[in-house]
């Protein structure tokens, strides 16, 4: 592991034990976040993205969810081995987190100021009330909330979703963490607010010099904000790579299918929207072989029998697919055809809109 690796997830497994059976929410996921970089974690619902974030912060919903294996290495320290008190030192201070639903993330019966100061007080336990209030006001102003002084005494229900999310962002970076995890932070916001919020995240990231883990099912957001992307499917990471690479020349068939499925503003209008055939795998039933094989047009016999190894490239990209394993029997149907035009326009679209 090199020095610029901030967080390394190795073979993480989180299983949720319910009476109806055990759900393998995360089943051997691995990826790396480097210092100062923004990594996007994408996948469908049920792919395990949120559970991975919860595992990192060790707030997996116990007693049902259990981390069954793997390592979460934050600057070399395994977070899974840490005790509750040790994790409390990590949360907020070394890793900050923003949740999905801004209106429900804030405690409805406490003022905004109260909740902000709570975070600030953890940073400076001995500070005076007046001091903390001042800092809280400054924090609100930093995230772009006007009338900060009077807003401190407001309650969350008086704020809009966008404002609430800004407050949670302020709280998350209050203690200057090295990593910020944002779990679908814009899903509940309308498009304009989304864009502004992403801009805020970007600004904060640069000011604090922190890394960002942005979880989303929206490729457009990830394309705009992130340096690198990790794609999850059925509890595992199937591909990671630099954003432009992922968008223009994705390696894994699933990623390619995702790219192809994005409707384009500038493309021909006669085509029907593309849907990946089949359904996401049931996370309950144990599977044999590559989990995407049932839906993959290029799947071969080997794919159906054995899960592919992960190929690591020199620049840090990874992919878990037999198509890219050297000396493996190439699955039938492999070809070099690339619909170049469509893929290029994906990149343009992402850069063009949302500003």
């Amino acid at each position, binding site marked *: 592991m090199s020095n610029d690796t901030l967080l390394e997830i190795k073979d993480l497994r989180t299983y949720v034990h319910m009476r*109806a059976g055990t759900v393998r929410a995360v089943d051997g996921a691995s990826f790396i976040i480097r210092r100062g970089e923004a990594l996007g974690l994408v996948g469908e619902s049920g792919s395990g993205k949120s559970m991975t974030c919860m595992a990192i912060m060790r707030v997996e919903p116990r007693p049902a969810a259990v981390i069954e294996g793997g390592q979460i290495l934050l600057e070399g320290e395994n977070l899974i081995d840490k005790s509750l008190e040790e994790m409390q030192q990590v949360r907020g201070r070394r890793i900050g987190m923003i949740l999905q639903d801004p209106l429900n993330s804030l405690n409805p019966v406490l003022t905004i100021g109260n909740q902000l100061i709570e975070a600030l007080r953890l940073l400076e336990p001995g500070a005076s009330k007046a001091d903390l209030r001042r800092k809280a006001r400054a924090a609100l102003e930093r995230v772009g909330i006007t009338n900060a002084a009077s807003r401190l005494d407001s309650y969350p229900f008086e704020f809009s979703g966008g404002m609430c999310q800004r407050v949670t962002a302020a709280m998350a970076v209050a203690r200057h963490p090295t990593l910020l995890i944002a779990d679908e932070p814009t899903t509940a916001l309308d498009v304009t607010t989304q864009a502004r919020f992403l801009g805020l995240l970007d600004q904060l990231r640069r000011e604090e010099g922190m890394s960002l883990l942005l979880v989303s099912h929206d490729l457009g957001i990830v394309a705009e904000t992130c340096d690198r992307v990790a794609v999850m499917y059925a509890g595992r990471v199937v591909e990671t790579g630099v954003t432009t690479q992922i968008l223009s020349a*994705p390696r894994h068939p699933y990623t390619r299918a995702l790219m*192809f499925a994005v409707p384009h503003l500038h493309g021909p209008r006669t085509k029907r929207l593309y849907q990946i055939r089949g359904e996401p795998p049931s996370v*309950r039933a144990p599977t044999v072989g590559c989990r995407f094989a049932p839906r993959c047009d290029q799947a071969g016999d080997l794919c159906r029998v054995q899960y592919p190894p*992960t190929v*690591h490239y020199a620049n840090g990209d990874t992919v878990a697919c037999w198509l890219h394993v050297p000396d493996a029997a190439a699955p039938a149907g*492999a070809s070099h055809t690339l*619909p170049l035009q469509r893929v290029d326009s994906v990149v343009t679209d992402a850069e063009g809109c949302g500003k």
Partner: protein
Amino acid sequence: MSEMSRLHTPLGRGDISQVVPAPEELQVDAAAPRKRRAVRRAPILALFLLTPILVFGFFGHFLMPHDPTMISPVHALLPPVFAGGTWEYALGTDHMGRDLLSRLIDGASNSLAVAFFGVALAGAFGTAIGLTAGYLRGAVEELLMRLVDMQLAIPTILLAVLLAAVIGGGLTTVIASLMITFWASYARVVRGETLILMQRDYVALARVAGASRWRIVRLHVLPNLLSVVVVLATLQLGAAVGIEAALTFLGLGIQPPASAWGLMISDGKLYMSQAWWIPTIPGIAIVMTVLGSNLLGDWLRDRLDPRLSQL
């Protein structure tokens, strides 16, 4: 050939640094889904508790070993069979020599009947009010709901006691007290449900199709209210038995010489020191009934509509 064929993955892009084998497939112990949880499972405990009570209530006459009202001083204060007594008087006798088991069985039918009628009447009345309020809305709704709130502002025992003061104790008093106590909950819940149901599309459709108000209520609203009302009623049955017992204990409920658990307990209080079983055993019967109906009500609620968990 599908569209996907134009997506086929290019090979050989980039310098490979290493190839790491796939993570192993962990065997999960509980991989096979077990049977669905308690929701489907029959409410065994509830039935276990309630069945003897119900059997006593309905078929008591055939099961009583003795005449519950027969006074026999020579057999007074006999202990139950598990405390030194005989099987002839399995649960012992009271101060007048009456067989406790027979009185228990006899009292079961009385208590159950009273509770049932009280709750049924309260349910009917309360549902009607709630339905009216929810359907008509506006001033009528406001008025009715204020009434509900006010009624909830007055404690039950007080009302029962007052009622008893006016018309004396007895069956009517208890049933009336139960009605007064319980109707408000129905009204509230039914109104809430009616409001929700009225928003449903099929009601709007029926209206547009020209269905009369009554028809809409009968066909669309009432059947859906049924589950709510049934759950509430079951839950309240237990409470009703408890209240009836309390009122009877105070002398305001079922009057002697009829058998009632409350009476047995109040009699037993006087002879507590000599015959602990007289007040204890009827109490256990009450606990069984209340617990059983609570459990049954919970199960019904989970089965029919988990939304109702605020009841």
